[in-house]
């Protein structure tokens, strides 16, 4: 690594490295002199690691080091992939796109009742959390996604989720997508 590294960047590096979970900007700021440009230092630190085997990632308001995704195969020798059911993934996507959302609304969107374990599984992973209640009769609990969800799916922020247009462009909404441009019956 080239040249002297500013003290603030070294300290951030050590703080993020020594933490057992993502560290919030608020927490990081506490350790640095007032007036430090935290965003700039974090951006510089992320750039330092861009090509390394470890990367600095942002998830919502928090930052953490993780291993580079392209090394997965070499690292994952022991880690077996946890396969998530379709029900769980669809429920998670619905919560991510429609938050805050009630259980009944999720069921309505999917046209099927949620089995007991689905929200439980997503909650246990730390991917969803309650977000108060909807002020309607029965005051149902609202669910939303967490920063841990962003981190787990390598998203910086919710707005990084692909829009319906992005999904179409990526071919995930074929073949009925975009009838204006694609003649009907095209594969």
């Amino acid at each position, binding site marked *: 690594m080239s040249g002297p590294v500013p003290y603030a960047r070294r300290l951030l590096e050590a703080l993020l490295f020594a933490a057992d979970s993502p560290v919030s900007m608020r927490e990081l700021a506490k350790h640095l002199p007032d007036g430090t440009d935290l965003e700039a230092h974090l951006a510089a630190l992320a750039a330092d690691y861009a090509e390394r085997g470890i*990367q600095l990632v942002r998830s919502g308001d928090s930052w953490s080091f993780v291993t580079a995704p392209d090394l997965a195969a070499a690292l994952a020798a022991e880690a077996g992939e946890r396969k998530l059911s*379709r029900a769980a*993934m669809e429920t998670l996507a619905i919560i991510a796109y429609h938050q805050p959302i009630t259980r009944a609304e999720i069921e309505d969107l*999917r*046209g099927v009742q949620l089995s007991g374990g689905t929200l439980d599984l997503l909650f246990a992973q730390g991917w969803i959390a*309650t977000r108060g209640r909807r002020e309607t009769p029965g005051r149902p609990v609202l669910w939303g996604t967490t920063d841990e969800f962003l981190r787990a799916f390598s998203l910086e922020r919710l707005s990084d989720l692909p829009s319906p247009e992005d999904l179409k462009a990526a*071919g*995930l909404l074929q073949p009925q*997508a975009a*009838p204006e441009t694609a003649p009907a019956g095209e594969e």
Partner: protein
Amino acid sequence: MTASLDRADIGVEGATDRSPPPPAEGADPFIVAIDGYEGPLDLLLALARDQKVDLLQISIQALADQYLGFIRRAQFAEIEFAAEYLVMAAWLAYLKSRLLLPAADPTEAADGEEMAAALQARLAQLDVMQAAAAALRLRPRLGVHFFPRGAATAQEPRPAPGPVRADLSGLIAAYAAVLKARAQRQPLTLEAGDWASIEQAIARIRRSLGDAPGWESLMRYLPAETMALLREGRLAGRSQLAATLAATLELAKEGVLALRQARPFGPIFVKALRTAQEPE
């Protein structure tokens, strides 16, 4: 370090990922599998995709026919599982009749069109969410494609105790744990009746004491059925054993008999000290 969606990340193979398997071609072509579908709306969406037109332009009549045909040939393992599919079938049949039959009242015809449009919108919405789920699945995932720090290690000295960190999810999970643990805690319950009394045991021992000279096992003074009860793990057996032991202690205090136990948990022996047939 961008985490925005890379198109390369969500290749076309993702499109297959979200679709349930096509109706299985089993031995009997008139029976189709319903297992791969997440409810009636999911089945309807899969059938709609076969029309290969925009979901908002889809022919609801054709879709209703497809669905009803599918349900007619479907095999349901469980009746409550079938119910939700059948409710949808009934609704679609109704919708179809609304769309087909010339309505006596023009507002009725409009209602049919509205219901069809609402269904198209619902299908389009679910379609987007299924695509979103597929896109999520294709993203690099923590613990699968990349990994967190294995251990949090700072050079000594360890941080001094400071403020504590906790969040709402942790709080709720903690309360759920309390409620779960509480639900699982069984209060101690005892079977009613069948308890041996010490008085009865004293009377029984007095009756048979001194039949044989010298030390005898305490077991000899148990009622006949005790051993069987103990073998079955019944509390009544343990009660008789406890009552008998307590009775011998009582009688030893009175000087009627002597007790001997060579080691902790070893066998207990009883010896009559004087003839005790008659109560004092």
